[in-house]
């Protein structure tokens, strides 16, 4: 029982962590480009990102399911019902959130840090570097909120993972399963653990961010 529970917690952390790394690796560079290059599409792209923050997780799950199912266009990858598919789905789910939050952070930095760096003689690349390093604590908060959203979502994990015991069962799908079985007590305990783990990660990241 405890072994299984530990496995579920570790798996949840790994999958959501991987999703966060993926979403950060493409979300932050996209935001940097949108911030530095004064494109006329910037506002429109940010509006799209802000809208997608509210996209239902089951919808993303369904769309990716259609892509990754055996008869789907990306079915040859064979990643449906694997932790990889959940991580990918969660990464896509949280990308708009990370873009939206980091855009406001970088926008704020652009008007002061960027200008200061340029005015003291930095190249655009040097200005970009200092802009990001100065924003790190706030960017970390944006990434952390993305992680929290990923670890707490159900739709993607259920549809793309299939809640397979020992392979794709994560905390939220385990809670859903226990509820469907009428095991409310266990479901509530799992919910408590989910909240505690999320809280722990939040505190650790905040401390790391403070020391950056």
């Amino acid at each position, binding site marked *: 029982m405890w072994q299984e529970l530990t496995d579920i917690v570790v798996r949840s952390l790994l999958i959501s962590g991987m999703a966060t790394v993926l979403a950060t690796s493409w979300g932050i560079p996209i935001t940097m480009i949108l911030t530095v290059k004064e494109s006329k599409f910037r506002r429109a792209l940010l509006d799209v990102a802000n809208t997608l923050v509210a996209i239902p997780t089951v919808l993303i799950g369904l769309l990716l399911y259609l892509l990754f199912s055996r008869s789907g266009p990306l079915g040859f990858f064979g990643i449906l019902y694997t932790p990889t598919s959940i991580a990918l789905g969660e990464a896509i789910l949280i990308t708009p959130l990370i873009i939206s939050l980091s855009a406001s952070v970088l926008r704020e930095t652009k008007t*002061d840090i960027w*200008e200061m*760096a*340029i*005015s*003291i*003689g*930095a*190249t655009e690349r040097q200005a970009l570097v*200092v802009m990001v390093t100065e924003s790190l604590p706030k960017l970390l908060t944006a990434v952390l909120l993305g992680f929290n959203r990923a670890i707490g979502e159900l739709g993607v994990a259920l549809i793309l993972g299939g809640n397979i015991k020992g392979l794709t069962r994560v905390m939220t799908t385990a809670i859903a399963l226990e509820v469907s079985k009428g095991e409310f007590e266990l479901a509530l305990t799992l919910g408590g653990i989910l909240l505690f783990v999320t809280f722990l990660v939040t505190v650790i990241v905040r401390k790391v961010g403070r020391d950056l």
Partner: protein
Amino acid sequence: MIELKGVSFAYVKEDVIKDVNLLLGPGVTAIIGPNGSGKTTLLKLAAGIYRPRVGEVLIDGINPWSVPETVKTSIRRNVVYIHEEPIMLRGSVADNVAYGLRIRKLPADEVVIRTEEVLEVLGIKHLAHEKAQTLSAGQKQRVALARALAVRPKNLLLDEPTANLDRCGRETLMELVKDLVRKGVCIAIATHDRLLAFKLTDRVVFVENKTAIFVEGSGGRWLI
């Protein structure tokens, strides 16, 4: 020396600066005008931070917007603009002052020497290891000035430099400006501080109705 030729600039659609012709030459030029008249925008255009919508800005005879990126940076490095609200990086005062030197990839020992030198000149050597972002507004102003002086610019653009300074700080600034002028630095000061302008400037630029009127002559006759 910085020259603006027929410069217009708009943040969104409407021009906030329109057809400005201006020469920021040797000595001190005061830029005076009501709030929101475009003084800061004018300085940022002169510093090569903003790109004019129309016209050209010549920094020591070269338009930084018409040359390749590497040349643009080397042209821009002849000018330093200091914000009205000094912007501090995370880290110590010494780190902040050394920033301009490090991005120029100067040798480490020279960075240390120059940093200590300007901290001494501005009377803030005792703050060298303090966190810059925790300083008072006046102290930040001095750090920003130190950061600018460390890179020894040929042109220095100051935006409301006395806004956060006490009397002692103002006097230090005035002495510094006089010293820099003796060394051949071209200085432009956007200010509401008419006393500062009266005491220091060789010419004045009035910014109003989106344009600039240039008046030559020292002694502050234009202030009466």
